[in-house]
C-alpha cells in the first residue's frame, strides 16, 4: 500500500513511466531510454555531491499541461504529468541556451586542453549547432597561470557552478564564488586573487567537475620533455597507486582495469632512466607512521595522529585549523619519500650527483604539484620531486609520443625503490592508508601475526567512518574521512572535544586518490570511482605480501641506509614540518 502511494505515473513522449515520488524528469526519461542533454547538472548522490543550480537551461523540456518549458534536471515529475522532450519549443529553447553560451566562448577547441574531452564541445556536436546566430561582447578575463597546480581561464567558463558546489559545499574551502552579476558574472577567487594567493588546497575537485577548460591542471609536460631530452640529466619517474587503475580509461579501457605493466613500459619508452613505484614509498610511510603512532601512544604524545600523505588535506589544516597543527603525522607523503630517497639512497648507490637527478612523478592528483613545490620539501634548492604530472597529462605524453598504449607489453618496476605490498596498493582509496597502517601497527605492538588482514569496516564510500580495532589489550579508535567537508566535521568534533580518536585518515578527494583531481574525467559517473576502488582492493588481494613491513626492499633500505624506523636519518629525509597560514 505504502509503496503504491509513493509511486507516480507520468508520460514522456507518449511513453508511460512509473517512478518513485521525488524523481526528476531527467531520471524518469533515462528510465525509458529517452536522452535529454544536460550541462550544469552533476549528480554523484552516493557521495552526497550534487550541483542543482539548474542554470544552464540546456535540458529544457515541455510540460504539456502548462505549455511551459521546465528544466528536466531539477523539476520533479508529478502524477499525470505529460512531458514532451522533443517539441519544437523545447528544442529551440535548448539550442538558444547553448548558442548563447557559445556566443560568449572563445571557441578555440583545436588548441584547447579539453579538446575531445569537453562537455560543452560534445553538446554542440550533439545538438547539431552549426551556426551561432548571436554575437557581441565576450568575457575577457586574464588567465591565471600563476599557481603551482591549477590554471584558470575564466573566458571558458559557462557559470555552471559545479566548481563552486565542489569547493564551497563539498570541500568547504570556499575559494570560488560567483562575483558581480548579470553578464559580468565571473566565477572567481575572492578579490580576483591569483589562486596561489588564496587558501586553495589544490585538491583539484573543481577541475575534475568543470565541464570546460575553464579550470584545468597546470601543464607540466613541456618541462618534463625538456628534462627527458637533456643528456646531462638522470631522469627518474615514480607512479602513484591510483594511476594504474585509471589510466586505461584514457585509452578506451573500462574503468578499473589494472594497467601497471603497461604504465611502466610507456614510461620506459618515453625515456625515463628509472621507473619507481610510489607504492614503495607507501610501504615506507606506513612503517614510519606506525612507529610515530606507537611512539605517541607510548610517550603520551598528541592524539589523535592524523595521516599526512594527502597534500590537499595538509594545506587545508594549515589554513583552516592552524591551532591543530600538532596532530598531523610528521611523515612526508610517499611521493616525497621516494623523491628524497632517489636523490640520496639511489644517488649514493649509483654514484650520481643528486643535482643531476630529475625526479618526476605521475600522480592522480593536482595537489601533488603544489606539494612538490613546498618550501619545506625543497631544502637547499634540492627538491625531493621536481615535476609532477597528472594521470591525464601522462596520457597526453603517451599520445604525443605516438605510443600505442594498447599494444604495450607489461614491464616490472626498477628494483631499488620498486617493490610494493598489497598494503601500499590500497593507499589510493579512502580507508586504505589506515587499513595498511593497522596491519603493521598490530604486529608492531603485539608482536603477533595478524591473520585476517581485510578490515572491511574501514572500507566503503561513507563520508565519515569510524572503526575500533582491538590490538592486544588496547583498542584503537580510528576515524576516516574523505572530502574536506567531512574532514572539517571530524576536526571540529576533535577541537571541541566532542569525539576522541587515536588515529585518523583523511583524503581530500571523493573516494580518495582514485577520485583525484588529476584522474581521467569521471563525467559525473560514480561507478567509475567505485570500479577503480574495487580494482585496488583486487590488486591488494592478488599480491603475495600484504603488510608493509614485509616489503624486503624497504627492510633493506633500513639496513643499508636509514638504520631503523624513526631514526635521525629517517627524520632528516622522511619527515617534515607544517606552518599556520592565513585563511582567505
Amino acid at each position, binding site marked *: 500500500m505504502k509503496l503504491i502511494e509513493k509511486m507516480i505515473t507520468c508520460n514522456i513522449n507518449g511513453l508511460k513511466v512509473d517512478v518513485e515520488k521525488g524523481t526528476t524528469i531527467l531520471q524518469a526519461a533515462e528510465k525509458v531510454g529517452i536522452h535529454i542533454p544536460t550541462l550544469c547538472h552533476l549528480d554523484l548522490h552516493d557521495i552526497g555531491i550534487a550541483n542543482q543550480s539548474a542554470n544552464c537551461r540546456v535540458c529544457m523540456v515541455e510540460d504539456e499541461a502548462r505549455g511551459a518549458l521546465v528544466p528536466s534536471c531539477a523539476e520533479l515529475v508529478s502524477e499525470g504529468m505529460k512531458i514532451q522532450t522533443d517539441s519544437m519549443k523545447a528544442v529551440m529553447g535548448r539550442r538558444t541556451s547553448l548558442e548563447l553560451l557559445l556566443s560568449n566562448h572563445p571557441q578555440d577547441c583545436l588548441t584547447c586542453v579539453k579538446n575531445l574531452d569537453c562537455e560543452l564541445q560534445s553538446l554542440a556536436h550533439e545538438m547539431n549547432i552549426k551556426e551561432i546566430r548571436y554575437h557581441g561582447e565576450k568575457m575577457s578575463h586574464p588567465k591565471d597561470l600563476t599557481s603551482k597546480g591549477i590554471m584558470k581561464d575564466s573566458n571558458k567558463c559557462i557559470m555552471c557552478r559545479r566548481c563552486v558546489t565542489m569547493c*564551497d559545499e563539498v570541500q568547504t*574551502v*570556499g*575559494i*570560488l*564564488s*560567483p*562575483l*558581480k*552579476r548579470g553578464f559580468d558574472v565571473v566565477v*572567481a*577567487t*575572492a*578579490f580576483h*586573487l*591569483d589562486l596561489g*594567493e*588564496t587558501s586553495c588546497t589544490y585538491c583539484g575537485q573543481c577541475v575534475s567537475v568543470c565541464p570546460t577548460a575553464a579550470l584545468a591542471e597546470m601543464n607540466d609536460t613541456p618541462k618534463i620533455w625538456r628534462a627527458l631530452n637533456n643528456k646531462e640529466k638522470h631522469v627518474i619517474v615514480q607512479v602513484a597507486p591510483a594511476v594504474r587503475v585509471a589510466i586505461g580509461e584514457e585509452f578506451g579501457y573500462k574503468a578499473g582495469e589494472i594497467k601497471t605493466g603497461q604504465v611502466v613500459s610507456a614510461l620506459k619508452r618515453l625515456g625515463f632512466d628509472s621507473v619507481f613505484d610510489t607504492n614503495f614509498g607507501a610501504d615506507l610511510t606506513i612503517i614510519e607512521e606506525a612507529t610515530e603512532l606507537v611512539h605517541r601512544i607510548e610517550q603520551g604524545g598528541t592524539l589523535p595522529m592524523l595521516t599526512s600523505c594527502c597534500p590537499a588535506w595538509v594545506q587545508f589544516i594549515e589554513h583552516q585549523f592552524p591551532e591543530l597543527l600538532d596532530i598531523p603525522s610528521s611523515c612526508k607523503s610517499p611521493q616525497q619519500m621516494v623523491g628524497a630517497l632517489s636523490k640520496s639512497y639511489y644517488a649514493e648507490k649509483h654514484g650520481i650527483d643528486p643535482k643531476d637527478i630529475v625526479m618526476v612523478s605521475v600522480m592522480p592528483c593536482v595537489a601533488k604539484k603544489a606539494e612538490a613545490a613546498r618550501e619545506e620539501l625543497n631544502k637547499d634548492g634540492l627538491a625531493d620531486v621536481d615535476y609532477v604530472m597528472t594521470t591525464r597529462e601522462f596520457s597526453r605524453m603517451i599520445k604525443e609520443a605516438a605510443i600505442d598504449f594498447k599494444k604495450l607489453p607489461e614491464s616490472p618496476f626498477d628494483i631499488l625503490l620498486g617493490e610494493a605490498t598489497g598494503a601500499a596498493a590500497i593507499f589510493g582509496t579512502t580507508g586504505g592508508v589506515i587499513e595498511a597502517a593497522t596491519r603493521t601497527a598490530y604486529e608492531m605492538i603485539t608482536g603477533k601475526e595478524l591473520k585476517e588482514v581485510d578490515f572491511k569496516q574501514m572500507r566503503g564510500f561513507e563520508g565519515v567512518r569510524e572503526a575500533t580495532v582491538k590490538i592486544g589489550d588496547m583498542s584503537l579508535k580510528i576515524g576516516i574521512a574523505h572530502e574536506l567537508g567531512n574532514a572539517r566535521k571530524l576536526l571540529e568534533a576533535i577541537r571541541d572535544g566532542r569525539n576522541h580518536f587515536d588515529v585518523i585518515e583523511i583524503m581530500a578527494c571523493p573516494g580518495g586518490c582514485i577520485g583525484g583531481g588529476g584522474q581521467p574525467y569521471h563525467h559525473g559517473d560514480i561507478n567509475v570511482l567505485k570500479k577503480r576502488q574495487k580494482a585496488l582492493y583486487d590488486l591488494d588481494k592478488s599480491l603475495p605480501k600484504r603488510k608493509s613491513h614485509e616489503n624486503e626492499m624497504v627492510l633493506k633500505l633500513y639496513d643499508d641506509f636509514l638504520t631503523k624506523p624513526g631514526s635521525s636519518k629517517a627524520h632528516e629525509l622522511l619527515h617534515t614540518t607544517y606552518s599556520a597560514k*592565513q*585563511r*582567505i
Partner: protein
Amino acid sequence: MRKEILDISQLDKSLLHELDAYIDSLKGDKQEQLIHVLHRAQELFGHLPYNVQLYVAHALKLSGAKVNGVVTFYSFFNEEPTGKYTISVCMGTACFVKGADKVLERILKLTKTKKNEMSEDGLFTIKDVRCIGACGLAPIVTVNDKVYGKVKVNEVDGILEKYRGDHHEN
C-alpha cells in the same frame, strides 16, 4: 602588493572596534546578517576595500570569496573609494522619459569620468540610480543628500560649478 591590500593591520583600529561592537550586538545567526554588517562597515570606512571585506569574512567565519561575491552583487556596496560628492542621476522610467539619460551623459562628460568611478580630482563619483520615489519632479539628480528636481541638460554645468566652487573655498 597583494599582501598590502589584504593587510588587516592597516585598518583604523577604532573603526574596527566599532564594527566589532556592531557585530557583537547582532542577535541570532550572524552570518545571515552579512548584508547588514557590510552596510555598517561601509558607513564606517566609506567604502569596502579588500581588507575590510576580509575582516568581515573572518569575523563572521565566512570565506573571502563568499563576502566578495555578496559585495560585488549589490550595487550599494563600493569597493572603490567614492568622491567627496556622490552625484546620483535617477534613471528610473519617469526620469528617463524626461531626458535623464542626456543629463547623465552631460555630467559624465563634464566630470570626465565613467559611471561608478571617482573623478580624478576626487570630487565626484557619478552613479545612475533607479527611481528614488520622487518621480513627480523628474528628472531627478541628487548630490549627496541634496535633491535637484526637473533638471535640464543646460543646468548641469551650473550645478557642478557650485560644488567645484565650494571645494575651492575649503
